[in-house]
């Protein structure tokens, strides 16, 4: 029997190998040198690793430090105290007239911008109106709507200062503005307040009146479209490719294509979106819908790849167990494979979504770079997204936009951080060990 002869030969070999072993001198000089060398190599490797980590930490710290240093100011605004003699200015409007169902019409008829300008010029001279930002009138209107009682007496209201003044108050501004600031400070007519407008407002030409909410909402809507499209399609594609697709040339080609697609520069997807969704299907330019579709194209391959890996990592023994008691292939997939792969798929999805969230180029291609002065109300409204807004603001010449850009970046980073935290949470929560 050949197998037998073979095994006997192995036995013989093994016997020969153990015959007459020369005892190893573990304490000899050569051995000691070898040990020392090994330890040195280990220390070198550790040191290099430490340096690499330290370097990247340093870069990260620098980024965060700069962002926070600049950006935190973006969440603050400079306010100027303005005295309003409402009974005189409004020629005797009553609290009752601006409450109730007719409040809006009354307020509209009051010419609040004129009132504000009058009040400011009474107090600070003819140039007074230049102290305030263009949104000041809207602020006053909001204050009156919130608290009608204000209209019955003389009030001192703190209104957002004009951008150049804002810059000069916070740090070094233009000499003229610095002078104004000094003058106002002497009168105690300047203070810093939290800039709610930044969180609730939309884009504006005046940096002190801009807000991030429109872009944030645009991003959320875009992401929603992306998730709705890319997640199911990506997951089903991954499941089909792993569980059902016959192993042949075509499948191999699809696999290579998907891997390639994940590496295609995002601007190409932008061009594709432009050509297909806008030109071919005539969808509304600059809308969250088109943005979401375009980003979905980009995110899908990432989800497919992550999904396939997650599906692949489900042990075959689980599939066999289910098949062995008579589960059909679909039952195997939906009862066992998908639930076990879900944490991995979700992690991959969120990482893909985070990438899409930070994407600018494809959105620029489909026209999401327009000036959007109010938050989008629907998926087909013109919208912008956070990274695009950041890109647009960073292009502005006005000094006031610098800190707004940084502040927007902070918002974007917090958003990303939140998404990654969610990914980690989901992974830990649903991960099954066996």
């Amino acid at each position, binding site marked *: *029997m050949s197998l*037998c002869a073979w*095994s*006997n030969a192995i*036995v013989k070999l093994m016997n020969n190998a153990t015959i007459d072993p020369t005892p190893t001198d573990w304490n000899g000089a050569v051995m000691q040198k070898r040990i020392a060398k090994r330890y040195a190599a280990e220390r070198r490797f550790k040191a290099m690793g430490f340096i690499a980590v330290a370097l990247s930490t340093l870069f990260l710290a620098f980024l965060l430090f700069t962002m926070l240093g600049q950006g935190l100011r973006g969440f603050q605004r400079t306010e100027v105290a303005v005295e309003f003699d409402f009974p005189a200015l409004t020629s005797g409007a009553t609290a009752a007239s601006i409450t109730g169902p007719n409040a809006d019409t009354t307020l509209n008829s009051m010419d609040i911008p004129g009132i504000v300008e009058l009040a400011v010029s009474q107090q600070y001279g003819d140039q007074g109106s230049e102290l305030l930002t263009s949104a000041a009138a809207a602020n006053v209107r909001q204050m009156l709507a919130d608290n009608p009682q204000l209209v019955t007496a003389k009030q001192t209201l703190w209104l957002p200062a004009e951008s150049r003044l804002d810059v000069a108050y916070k740090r070094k501004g233009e000499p003229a503005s610095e002078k104004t600031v000094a003058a106002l400070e002497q009168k105690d007519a300047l203070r810093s307040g939290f800039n709610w407008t930044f969180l609730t407002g939309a884009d504006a030409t005046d940096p002190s009146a801009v807000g991030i909410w429109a872009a944030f909402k645009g991003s959320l809507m875009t992401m929603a479209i992306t998730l709705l499209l890319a997640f199911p399609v990506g997951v089903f594609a991954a499941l089909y490719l792993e569980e059902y697709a016959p192993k042949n040339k075509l499948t191999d080609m699809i696999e290579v294509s998907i891997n390639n697609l994940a590496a295609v520069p995002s601007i190409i997807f932008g061009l594709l979106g432009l050509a297909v969704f806008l030109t071919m299907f005539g969808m509304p330019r600059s809308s969250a819908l088109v943005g979401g579709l375009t980003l979905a194209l980009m995110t899908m391959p990432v989800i497919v790849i992550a999904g396939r890996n997650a599906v692949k990592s489900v042990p075959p023994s689980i599939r066999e167990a289910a098949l062995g008691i008579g589960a059909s292939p679909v039952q195997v997939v939906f009862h066992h494979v998908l639930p076990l792969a879900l944490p991995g798929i979700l992690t991959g999805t969120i990482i893909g979504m985070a990438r899409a969230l930070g994407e600018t180029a494809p959105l620029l291609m489909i026209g999401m770079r327009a000036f959007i002065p109010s938050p989008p109300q629907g998926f087909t409204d013109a919208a912008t997204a956070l990274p695009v807004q950041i890109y647009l603001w960073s292009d502005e010449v006005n000094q006031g936009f610098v800190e707004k850009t940084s502040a927007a970046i902070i918002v974007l980073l917090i958003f990303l951080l939140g998404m990654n935290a969610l990914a980690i949470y989901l992974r830990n929560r649903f991960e099954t060990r066996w």
Partner: protein
Amino acid sequence: MSTGTKHTVTAFDDDMDEIRGLIAEMGARAESAVKAAMKALGEHDTELAAATRAEDKIIDTLETEVEKLVVRTIALRAPMADDLRELIAALKMSAVIERIGDYAKNIAKRVPQMEAKSALAGNEQLVRMGEIVVEMIRTAMDAYAKRDIDLARAVTARDDDVDQLNKDLFVDFVAYVAKNPKMATEVAHLLFTAKNLERIGDHTTTVAQMIYFTETGENLPDA
């Protein structure tokens, strides 16, 4: 064995070889013990008789040795098929050969109790019986060494001759005692000797049967 290949675990083969060697030694010793006992009887050699009795002790020791080894091998190697059969056969054979040694000792023990130069001790049929039994043992051990079932079968065939001789001898001796009542003791000793030889023949047959069983896995059909 029939394929002649060795076990993957060669220590198993070493154990088996050791047991085989011990059985072969027991057989050889038993054979010469029977031979010596018959010689001592025929020549009234009390010294040789004493030596034969001492030989039995050695056979006893060997049996214990085989038993120990077989038990150890079964426990440690978990033998199967022909290995298992061979070990079981070895256990039984060692016990049987030990009995042969005992019978040789019995015969030797009678030598001092007999009268010197008894004419009866040289009885032709008794001597013949002794010769056949010794030959049976030799053949059996040969069959064992060569794993030869034909030789084993031949051994069992010879046993019938021994039985026949034993019966003839009984009739002759009884007739003899009737004529010479004074010789009753002598005859009784010799009758027992013949009986012992007959038993040795039976045991040798058992050895042959064991060899046959080891090789074929079946019992030797009655001839």
